């Protein structure tokens, strides 16, 4: 820390900061555009000009750009200096020369950094009287709208898209005041992180195209703190609602998790909750058809089934802890089954045991601050997309360190990049197929999952000869293992990423061995496992029984009725097996928000609250328990799954039915009932939390039309809904100071209407939110020596004649169940296919797109061939979660033949 004096007041600031972040970190208002806390400084816009003075005697001072100036002890600075003010006003005047007067029809209006900064600097009259420059816009795909006339040439978009996110299909084109930010040709933006441009752009050049379909100003949205339901990373979201539908999603900063950015699945997947395939009323089967029924009637039927006994429950990795726990309570722990394929369940259980032994799971922030990475068996972009963006920063860590040695501060972004050039890494990726992160890798390695595991074991063995040895490794693989071991061993803070992509337990064990060998060598070693769904880890911690045992129990005739919670069994097991199970299991109750093939078979369907409508807790793959809160109270009979189950418990006169009056009560029940979940209590303050006696408003104080929104129904203002579950109110009144991070619905402060307001909520710029980032970690590395090694090195992969090992391949768009129901994402989902290596495809006589029969024991389908260079011989891939074979548990051996 060091002291600087700004306008005669002394501030303690980080000695390594630049002047802009030092000032903003203390809540001082200084306008800026090109600087971004995650992208650093480049000095383009010249908006953050301040005066600095040599000493007390220096009365003239000189203008410097705060973002490009390192703080120095006792530096004398003035923001208020008239000359600096005038210069900043001149800059905004220049920026606004050609900016259209279209704020009233611009989607950015009301959340626009350019508006805020223009007001802050006091520019209000355009003196430039010559023609404005105009551009042609491009159709950039389903996510983003492009309106180049609004551009102020701050270069943030290209710096995020090309430099930070590694995109290659977007560029800076042309010169002078005509600089054009776009693609060489119109078309869908390729980067999976393109949606961030909506928030990175300080004005309305890039805006959310999905929001445009149902646009509402930010100030008219009702927000709540939420967690992304579309993968296991647990990115924090701020969804916004008006008139009972979700309108858009903003990033909700969490310094340990998503930071400033989301992936496009997380940002645009929300529209599934607005789907016309939502279940909005209880449905009961009569005369063979599902028909709406009264809530009381539905509950009576449900409780009758429960009272009759022999009822089992199938939980879900996309349902909250609370929903799963309520089901477990209803049916009993012995009758509570994991709603995932047995192999997937075993894999997560293995990860849990490995993470408990340590090292504990790395947060995304840990990974970003690592300086070397090994990705073992993962297509990170497909399964845990936001982590891929993080790994792109990991590979810059050593370059930043080298720059700092030369006196170039890490925030001086372009200087750091110019010094490092393409000398990135180390990042090693071993995967059966190409991944979207390959371009960032030091080296990639294509192999069958078992061979990837062997590579991992070999790396661990090179790092520590005490770890299991791999016999019969090829000289090439051995040399690669040596290079990887050297790179990781030479780093200060290496991280190993593995997980669920290829569903291979040996790969996961090998990854843990590498991390442990690094820890034994005294490294601050990180380990991260990807998982498939938002609550995969939470469900595993409840130790349900494997799904196969439920099928077995039904076959034995031990089941009279089954409750399926927020799950489509046809995604979890082969169709024939599910059909047989449902046939044998008697009555079927489905609690879900969307209609599914499983729901279509139900005798009773209860409408569950969807994303944005439910409260609950997810445990992320980092082991972070995070609470999400309903954005709005759902209409009709829709309620949280745990409330449906609570209502049945009440009808059965079970004590929980009366005790679980709000979310806190069931959280407490789960925390008490399952030791591994004790920590979920700390995920967020309870419903009784108040700030100076007030609840926390879900609506910005400028929320408009409260008294007129429902004037078509009645002129008297209805009472806002009560929220018994949280300290959040459904109004704009309430606490005016910053709530704790888990209860922070949106970022807004006076004069800062855009997402840039997050500056005002952090302890320091890009640091934790004040009071600590949201969530409670359930895993910490045990003290003492690093855990021992796992054995069971698999044999080398042996291709089979006429058969292929089918591995899953996760797609950011299409593989995840809920987001695939969002129209914008559905547009980008791939068609079903089977991927083969070029040699295998040639041997089969199948060209690109040729139809082939894929026959596994569990099912068969005719699929077009996609030729995937690099896919090892004897290995084929199917897209995870989509297509006719999505219920088959992978990996599996299958025949692939040309149709006769």
């Amino acid at each position, binding site marked *: 820390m060091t002291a600087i004096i700004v306008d005669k007041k002394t501030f303690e600031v980080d000695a390594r900061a630049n002047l802009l972040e030092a000032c903003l970190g203390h809540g001082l208002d200084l306008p800026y555009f090109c600087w971004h806390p995650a992208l650093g400084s*480049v*000095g*383009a*816009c*010249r*908006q953050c*000009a301040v005066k600095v003075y040599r000493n007390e005697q220096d009365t003239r001072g*000189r*203008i*410097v750009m705060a973002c*490009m100036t390192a703080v120095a002890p006792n530096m004398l600075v003035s923001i208020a200096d008239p000359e600096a003010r005038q*210069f900043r006003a*001149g*800059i905004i005047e*220049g*920026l606004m*020369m050609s900016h259209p007067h279209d704020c009233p029809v611009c989607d950015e209006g009301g959340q626009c950094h350019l508006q805020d900064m223009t007001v802050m600097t006091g520019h209000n009259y355009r*003196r*430039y009287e*010559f023609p404005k420059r105009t551009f042609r816009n491009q159709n950039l795909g389903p996510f983003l709208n492009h309106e180049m006339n609004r551009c*102020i*040439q701050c*270069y943030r978009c290209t710096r995020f898209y090309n430099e930070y996110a590694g995109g290659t299909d977007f560029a*800076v084109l*042309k*010169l*002078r*005041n*005509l*600089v054009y930010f776009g693609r060489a040709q119109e078309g869908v933006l390729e980067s999976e992180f393109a949606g961030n441009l909506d928030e990175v752009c300080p004005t309305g050049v890039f805006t959310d195209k999905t929001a445009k379909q149902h646009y509402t100003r930010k100030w008219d949205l009702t927000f709540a703190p939420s967690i992304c339901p579309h993968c296991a990373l647990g990115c924090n979201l701020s969804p916004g609602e008006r008139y009972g539908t979700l309108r858009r999603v903003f990033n909700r900063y969490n310094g340990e998790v998503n930071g400033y950015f989301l992936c496009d699945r997380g940002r645009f997947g929300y529209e599934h909750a607005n789907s016309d395939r939502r279940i909005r009323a209880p449905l009961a089967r009569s005369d063979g058809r599902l028909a709406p029924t009264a809530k009381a009637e539905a509950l009576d039927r449900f409780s009758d089934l429960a009272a009759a006994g022999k009822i089992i429950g199938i939980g879900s990795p996309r349902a909250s802890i609370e929903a799963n726990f309520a089901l477990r309570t209803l049916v009993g722990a012995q009758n509570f089954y994991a709603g995932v394929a047995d192999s997937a369940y075993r894999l997560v259980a293995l990860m849990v045991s490995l993470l408990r032994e340590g090292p504990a799971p790395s947060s995304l922030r840990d990974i970003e601050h690592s300086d070397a990475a090994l990705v073992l068996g993962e297509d990170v972009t497909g399964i845990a997309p936001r982590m891929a963006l993080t790994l792109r920063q990991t590979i810059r860590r050593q370059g930043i360190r080298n720059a700092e040695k*030369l*006196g*170039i501060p890490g925030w*001086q972004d*372009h*200087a750091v990049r*110019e*010094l*490092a*050039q393409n*000398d990135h890494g180390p990042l090693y990726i071993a995967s059966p197929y190409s991944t979207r992160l390959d371009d960032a890798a030091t080296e990639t390695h294509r192999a069958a999952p078992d061979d990837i595991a062997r590579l991992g074991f070999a790396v661990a063995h090179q790092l520590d000869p005490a770890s299991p040895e791999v016999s019969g490794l090829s000289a090439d693989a051995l040399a690669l293992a040596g290079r990887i071991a050297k790179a990781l061993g030479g780093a200060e803070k290496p991280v190993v990423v593995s997980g669920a992509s290829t569903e291979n337990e040996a790969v996961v064990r090998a990854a843990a061995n590498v991390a442990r060998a690094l820890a034994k060598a005294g490294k601050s070693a990180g380990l991260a496992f990807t998982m498939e769904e938002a609550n995969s880890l939470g469900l595993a911690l409840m130790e349900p029984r494997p799904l196969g045992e439920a099928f077995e129990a039904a076959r034995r005739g031990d089941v009279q009725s089954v409750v399926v919670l927020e799950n489509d069994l046809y995604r979890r097991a082969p169709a024939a097996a599910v059909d047989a199970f449902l046939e044998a299991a008697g009555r079927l109750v489905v609690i879900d928000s969307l209609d599914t093939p499983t729901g279509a078979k139900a005798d009773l369907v209860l409408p569950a609250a969807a994303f944005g409508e439910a409260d609950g807790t997810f445990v992320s793959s980092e082991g972070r328990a995070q609470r999400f809160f309903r954005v709005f109270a759902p209409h009709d009979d829709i309620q949280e799954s745990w409330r449906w189950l609570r209502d049945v418990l009440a009808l059965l006169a079970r004590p929980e039915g009366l005790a679980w009056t709000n979310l806190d009560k069931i959280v407490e029940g789960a925390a008490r009932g399952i030791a591994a979940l004790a920590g979920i209590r700390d995920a967020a303050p309870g419903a009784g939390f108040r700030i100076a006696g007030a609840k926390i408003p879900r609506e910005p104080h400028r929320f408009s039309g409260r008294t007129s929104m429902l004037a078509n129904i009645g002129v008297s203002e209805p009472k806002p809904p009560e929220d018994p579950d949280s300290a959040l109110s459904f109004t704009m009144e309430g606490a005016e100071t910053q709530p704790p991070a888990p209860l922070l619905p949106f970022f807004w402060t006076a004069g800062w209407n855009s997402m840039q307001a997050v500056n005002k909520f952090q302890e320091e710029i890009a640091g934790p939110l004040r009071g600590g980032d949201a969530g409670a970690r359930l895993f910490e590395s045990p003290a003492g020596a690093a855990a021992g090694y796992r054995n069971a090195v698999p044999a080398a992969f042996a291709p089979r004649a006429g058969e292929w090992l089918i591995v899953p391949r996760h797609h950011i768009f299409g593989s995840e169940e809920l987001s695939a129901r969002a129209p914008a994402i559905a547009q980008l989902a791939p068609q079903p296919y089977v991927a083969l290596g070029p040699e295998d495809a040639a041997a089969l006589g199948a060209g690109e797109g040729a139809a082939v029969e894929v026959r596994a024991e569990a099912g068969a389908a005719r699929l077009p061939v996609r030729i995937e260079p690099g896919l090892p011989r004897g290995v084929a891939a199917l897209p995870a979660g989509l297509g006719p074979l999505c219920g088959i548990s992978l990996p599996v051996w299958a025949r692939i033949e040309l149709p006769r």
Partner: protein
Amino acid sequence: METPLTAKIRPDGTMVDLAAYERAGGYEAARKAMRMSPAEITEEVKKSNLRGRGGAGFPTGQKWSFVPLGPDAPRPKYLVANGDEMEPGTFKDRVLLEGDPHGLLEGMIVAARAIEADRGYIFLRGEYTDAAERLERALQEAGAKGYLGKNIFGSGSDFDLRLHLSGGRYMCGEETGLLNALEGKRANPRAKPPFPQVSGLFGKPTIVQNIETLSNVPHIIAKGAEWFKGLALTPDAGTKLYGASGKVKKPGCWELPMGTPMRELLDVYAGGMREGVKFRGVLPGGASTDFLTVDHLDVPMDFTQVAKAGSRLGTGTMIVLDDKTCPVGMVHNLTHFFSQESCGWCTPCWSGLRWAEEMLWAIEEGRGSASDLDRLGYICGMMAPGNTFCALAPGAAEPIQSALKFFRDDFERHLRYKHCPWRDGR
């Protein structure tokens, strides 16, 4: 009067080839440099008081001394000759490049020795096709003799030198914009610090030096710093390639002692003004310098004295304004150039120059208003050094701000008459 830079150049304009160059004593300085240590070379250049001829006048030896030397220095290190010469009114480097390419090569060999550079690039203005052909030939000749490439002059050091033709933008002449262009990126300038000596081309230590500067180096090494200082009339040492364009009788480029007074340049070498026109002012060192007027004709043309007079020596190639040419039109023309060449990086430049250009054209066309002159001055202030990211905009402001000072009457006549007093039929 000695003219070391141009002495070898043939009057018929043909190239001095390697044989001719060596007959005239060429490459002896390079041989001598191979026997000197890098520090000795740099010290000699420092003592010579050679200042950069690209326009900024930074002491050359001092610049070299910032390059890390020795076995621990990052490798490869680069030496880049800046032959972009896009400054309007400037054509001095072209004379050297076309006439005596080996002079540049020898200078680069010596400079590379001084900074222990492994690789070199000659970054050449794309339109200089004759120079490109001759440089290619010179590179081949020198390479064949072992003066370039591996183990040059048997010294044990390598120096791989290549020619790169610019795609053609004014920004490519800015040293860091040039580096980005060489890397195949947009020719945007880079932040300084870090300076190229620390992190330059491909992130490695790099010296970027003007053609004329480098061409001086062999002579300093061959004949010594004291001799070099003795060439000049003023303490800014050596000779200088001066030039003049505009309505003078004999526009051209001449090598003369540093510090030759402007009046002598214009009257003796440029032959005075053409019949029927009178001198009104001059941009002493290319388009991006402040106007000087008849009051400044006795200024010795060196870095220090021209700066004292309120302008810059710049490239030393003068653009003369006469009384039959509209100063507003001239400044508009220059501003149009600079506005067009703005890379679009920093706001004062891309917005300020566009606005200034529009306003100057409006004034020229008689559509200006009284407030425009103040606003032009204000825009120039916004583009002052330190306010912008690189020197393009401050340079572009210099002709505007000085024209407003010296030719304000002419601007006001445009406003008053609502047309340009110089144009026919109005």
